[in-house]
Protein backbone atom coordinates (compact mmCIF):
# COMPACT_ATOMS: atom_id res chain seq x y z
CA UNK A 1 0.00 0.00 0.00
CA UNK A 2 1.41 3.43 -0.92
CA UNK A 3 2.58 5.64 1.93
CA UNK A 4 3.53 9.20 2.63
CA UNK A 5 7.31 9.19 3.07
CA UNK A 6 9.23 11.73 5.14
CA UNK A 7 12.94 12.39 5.36
CA UNK A 8 14.98 12.62 7.45
CA UNK A 9 13.44 10.69 10.32
CA UNK A 10 15.46 12.72 12.80
CA UNK A 11 17.19 16.08 12.34
CA UNK A 12 19.34 17.86 14.89
CA UNK A 13 20.20 21.48 14.24
CA UNK A 14 21.56 24.48 16.06
CA UNK A 15 19.42 27.46 16.90
CA UNK A 16 19.39 29.98 14.07
CA UNK A 17 20.11 27.42 11.36
CA UNK A 18 17.82 26.71 8.44
CA UNK A 19 16.23 23.28 8.06
CA UNK A 20 14.28 21.69 5.25
CA UNK A 21 11.96 18.81 5.97
CA UNK A 22 10.96 16.69 3.01
CA UNK A 23 7.90 14.68 2.16
CA UNK A 24 6.93 12.49 -0.77
CA UNK A 25 3.14 12.26 -0.86
CA UNK A 26 1.15 9.42 -2.36
CA UNK A 27 1.00 9.96 -6.11
CA UNK A 28 -2.73 10.66 -6.38
CA UNK A 29 -2.77 13.17 -3.55
CA UNK A 30 -3.71 16.73 -4.47
CA UNK A 31 -3.98 18.37 -1.04
CA UNK A 32 -0.96 18.57 1.23
CA UNK A 33 -0.47 19.53 4.83
CA UNK A 34 2.10 19.99 7.56
CA UNK A 35 1.29 19.33 11.19
CA UNK A 36 3.52 19.27 14.23
CA UNK A 37 3.45 17.69 17.64
CA UNK A 38 5.53 19.11 20.45
CA UNK A 39 6.43 16.38 22.93
CA UNK A 40 3.51 15.68 25.24
CA UNK A 41 1.17 18.04 23.40
CA UNK A 42 -1.58 17.76 20.82
CA UNK A 43 -1.00 17.38 17.12
CA UNK A 44 -1.51 20.86 15.64
CA UNK A 45 -2.12 22.13 12.15
CA UNK A 46 0.50 24.30 10.47
CA UNK A 47 -0.42 24.78 6.82
CA UNK A 48 -2.42 23.39 3.91
CA UNK A 49 -1.29 23.52 0.28
CA UNK A 50 -3.29 23.00 -2.87
CA UNK A 51 -2.74 23.84 -6.52
CA UNK A 52 0.76 25.09 -5.75
CA UNK A 53 -0.27 27.63 -3.18
CA UNK A 54 -1.01 27.88 0.49
CA UNK A 55 -4.75 27.54 1.11
CA UNK A 56 -4.69 28.04 4.86
CA UNK A 57 -2.13 28.50 7.62
CA UNK A 58 -2.20 28.67 11.38
CA UNK A 59 -0.79 31.45 13.53
CA UNK A 60 2.19 29.19 14.24
CA UNK A 61 3.15 29.36 10.56
CA UNK A 62 4.86 32.74 10.63
CA UNK A 63 7.40 34.30 8.26
CA UNK A 64 10.06 31.84 9.39
CA UNK A 65 8.16 29.00 7.76
CA UNK A 66 7.64 28.32 4.08
CA UNK A 67 6.40 25.41 1.97
CA UNK A 68 6.83 24.47 -1.62
CA UNK A 69 6.41 21.63 -4.06
CA UNK A 70 9.16 22.47 -6.54
CA UNK A 71 9.17 19.41 -8.76
CA UNK A 72 5.61 18.16 -8.51
CA UNK A 73 6.55 15.33 -6.19
CA UNK A 74 8.49 16.44 -3.11
CA UNK A 75 6.67 18.69 -0.66
CA UNK A 76 8.96 20.61 1.65
CA UNK A 77 8.73 22.62 4.84
CA UNK A 78 11.49 25.12 5.44
CA UNK A 79 12.23 26.82 8.72
CA UNK A 80 14.59 29.71 8.05
CA UNK A 81 16.03 30.40 11.47
CA UNK A 82 15.17 27.69 13.94
CA UNK A 83 14.33 28.40 17.55
CA UNK A 84 14.44 26.06 20.53
CA UNK A 85 10.63 25.99 20.57
CA UNK A 86 10.57 24.61 17.03
CA UNK A 87 11.69 21.27 18.45
CA UNK A 88 8.85 18.89 17.65
CA UNK A 89 7.75 16.01 15.48
CA UNK A 90 6.68 17.34 12.10
CA UNK A 91 4.15 15.37 10.10
CA UNK A 92 3.37 15.66 6.43
CA UNK A 93 -0.11 14.60 5.33
CA UNK A 94 -2.01 14.34 2.10
CA UNK A 95 -5.34 13.46 0.64
CA UNK A 96 -6.68 12.68 -2.83
CA UNK A 97 -9.79 14.86 -2.65
CA UNK A 98 -11.28 17.34 -0.22
CA UNK A 99 -13.47 14.74 1.47
CA UNK A 100 -11.17 11.72 1.45
CA UNK A 101 -9.13 10.54 4.43
CA UNK A 102 -6.01 12.39 5.47
CA UNK A 103 -2.94 10.13 5.41
CA UNK A 104 0.08 11.00 7.50
CA UNK A 105 3.74 10.22 7.13
CA UNK A 106 5.90 8.81 9.92
CA UNK A 107 7.20 12.21 10.84
CA UNK A 108 10.53 13.99 11.20
CA UNK A 109 11.73 14.58 14.71
CA UNK A 110 13.39 18.00 14.78
CA UNK A 111 15.65 18.81 17.70
CA UNK A 112 16.96 22.36 17.98
CA UNK A 113 19.88 22.83 20.35
Amino acid sequence: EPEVTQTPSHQVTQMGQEVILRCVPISNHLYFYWYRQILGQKVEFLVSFYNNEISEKSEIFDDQFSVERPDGSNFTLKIRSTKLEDSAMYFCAGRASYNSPLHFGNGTRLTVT
Partner: protein
Amino acid sequence: SQELEQSPQSLIVQEGKNLTINCTSSKTLYGLYWYKQKYGEGLIFLMMLQKGGEEKSHEKITAKLDEKKQQSSLHITASQPSHAGIYLCGAGRRAGGTSYGKLTFGQGTILTVHP
Protein backbone atom coordinates in the same frame (compact mmCIF):
# COMPACT_ATOMS: atom_id res chain seq x y z
CA SER B 1 -12.04 27.57 17.98
CA GLN B 2 -13.04 23.96 18.30
CA GLU B 3 -11.70 21.87 21.18
CA LEU B 4 -11.76 18.09 21.40
CA GLU B 5 -11.63 16.31 24.72
CA GLN B 6 -10.88 12.60 24.86
CA SER B 7 -11.73 10.30 27.72
CA PRO B 8 -10.24 8.47 29.35
CA GLN B 9 -6.72 9.87 29.04
CA SER B 10 -5.31 6.41 29.57
CA LEU B 11 -6.68 2.93 29.74
CA ILE B 12 -5.16 -0.37 30.87
CA VAL B 13 -7.08 -3.51 30.00
CA GLN B 14 -6.55 -7.23 30.00
CA GLU B 15 -6.37 -8.93 26.64
CA GLY B 16 -9.82 -10.01 25.51
CA LYS B 17 -11.68 -7.18 27.22
CA ASN B 18 -13.86 -4.67 25.40
CA LEU B 19 -13.22 -0.96 25.75
CA THR B 20 -14.57 2.41 24.65
CA ILE B 21 -12.84 5.72 24.05
CA ASN B 22 -14.86 8.91 23.75
CA CYS B 23 -14.19 12.13 21.93
CA THR B 24 -16.33 15.15 22.78
CA SER B 25 -16.31 18.37 20.82
CA SER B 26 -16.97 21.90 22.04
CA LYS B 27 -18.68 22.68 18.72
CA THR B 28 -20.77 20.88 16.10
CA LEU B 29 -18.98 17.93 14.60
CA TYR B 30 -19.01 17.78 10.84
CA GLY B 31 -16.28 15.26 10.14
CA LEU B 32 -14.51 13.09 12.67
CA TYR B 33 -11.37 11.06 12.15
CA TRP B 34 -9.84 8.39 14.32
CA TYR B 35 -6.12 7.68 14.18
CA LYS B 36 -3.77 5.38 16.02
CA GLN B 37 -0.24 6.46 16.89
CA LYS B 38 2.59 4.45 18.31
CA TYR B 39 4.90 6.50 20.50
CA GLY B 40 7.25 8.57 18.35
CA GLU B 41 5.71 7.42 15.09
CA GLY B 42 3.19 8.61 12.55
CA LEU B 43 -0.59 8.61 12.66
CA ILE B 44 -2.29 5.58 11.16
CA PHE B 45 -5.71 6.31 9.71
CA LEU B 46 -8.46 4.14 11.21
CA MET B 47 -11.81 5.61 10.23
CA MET B 48 -13.56 8.72 9.01
CA LEU B 49 -17.13 9.56 9.99
CA GLN B 50 -18.94 12.25 8.10
CA LYS B 51 -22.61 12.03 8.99
CA GLY B 52 -24.53 12.06 12.23
CA GLY B 53 -25.46 8.55 13.28
CA GLU B 54 -22.80 7.06 11.05
CA GLU B 55 -21.11 3.94 12.31
CA LYS B 56 -18.12 2.23 10.76
CA SER B 57 -16.22 -0.92 11.59
CA HIS B 58 -12.81 -2.23 10.71
CA GLU B 59 -11.83 -5.61 12.07
CA LYS B 60 -12.59 -5.35 15.80
CA ILE B 61 -12.83 -1.58 15.96
CA THR B 62 -16.14 0.28 15.63
CA ALA B 63 -16.62 4.03 15.62
CA LYS B 64 -19.83 6.02 15.87
CA LEU B 65 -20.68 9.67 15.44
CA ASP B 66 -23.43 11.26 17.53
CA GLU B 67 -23.96 14.74 16.13
CA LYS B 68 -26.49 15.76 18.76
CA LYS B 69 -24.12 14.98 21.60
CA GLN B 70 -21.19 16.38 19.60
CA GLN B 71 -19.42 13.16 20.40
CA SER B 72 -17.78 10.17 18.79
CA SER B 73 -16.92 6.87 20.40
CA LEU B 74 -14.40 4.23 19.43
CA HIS B 75 -15.10 0.72 20.63
CA ILE B 76 -12.66 -2.17 20.55
CA THR B 77 -14.03 -5.67 20.96
CA ALA B 78 -11.88 -8.44 22.44
CA SER B 79 -8.76 -6.29 22.70
CA GLN B 80 -5.34 -7.66 21.78
CA PRO B 81 -1.81 -6.44 22.57
CA SER B 82 -1.61 -5.24 18.95
CA HIS B 83 -4.32 -2.68 19.77
CA ALA B 84 -2.01 -0.92 22.20
CA GLY B 85 -1.04 2.63 21.27
CA ILE B 86 -2.33 6.18 21.39
CA TYR B 87 -5.75 6.80 19.87
CA LEU B 88 -6.42 10.27 18.54
CA CYS B 89 -9.61 11.84 17.33
CA GLY B 90 -9.47 14.72 14.88
CA ALA B 91 -12.27 16.96 13.72
CA GLY B 92 -12.46 18.65 10.37
CA ARG B 93 -14.42 21.68 9.36
CA ARG B 94 -17.12 21.56 6.76
CA ALA B 95 -18.78 24.38 4.92
CA GLY B 96 -21.17 23.95 2.07
CA GLY B 97 -20.63 20.21 2.09
CA THR B 98 -16.87 20.45 1.76
CA SER B 99 -14.56 18.97 4.33
CA TYR B 100 -11.20 20.59 4.89
CA GLY B 101 -7.93 19.03 5.95
CA LYS B 102 -7.35 21.40 8.81
CA LEU B 103 -7.97 19.02 11.65
CA THR B 104 -8.16 19.82 15.34
CA PHE B 105 -6.99 16.89 17.45
CA GLY B 106 -7.80 15.63 20.89
CA GLN B 107 -5.01 15.02 23.36
CA GLY B 108 -5.05 11.27 22.77
CA THR B 109 -5.93 8.20 24.81
CA ILE B 110 -3.10 5.87 25.73
CA LEU B 111 -4.21 2.24 25.54
CA THR B 112 -2.24 -0.55 27.17
CA VAL B 113 -3.35 -4.15 26.67
CA HIS B 114 -1.87 -6.74 28.98
CA PRO B 115 -1.57 -10.27 27.61
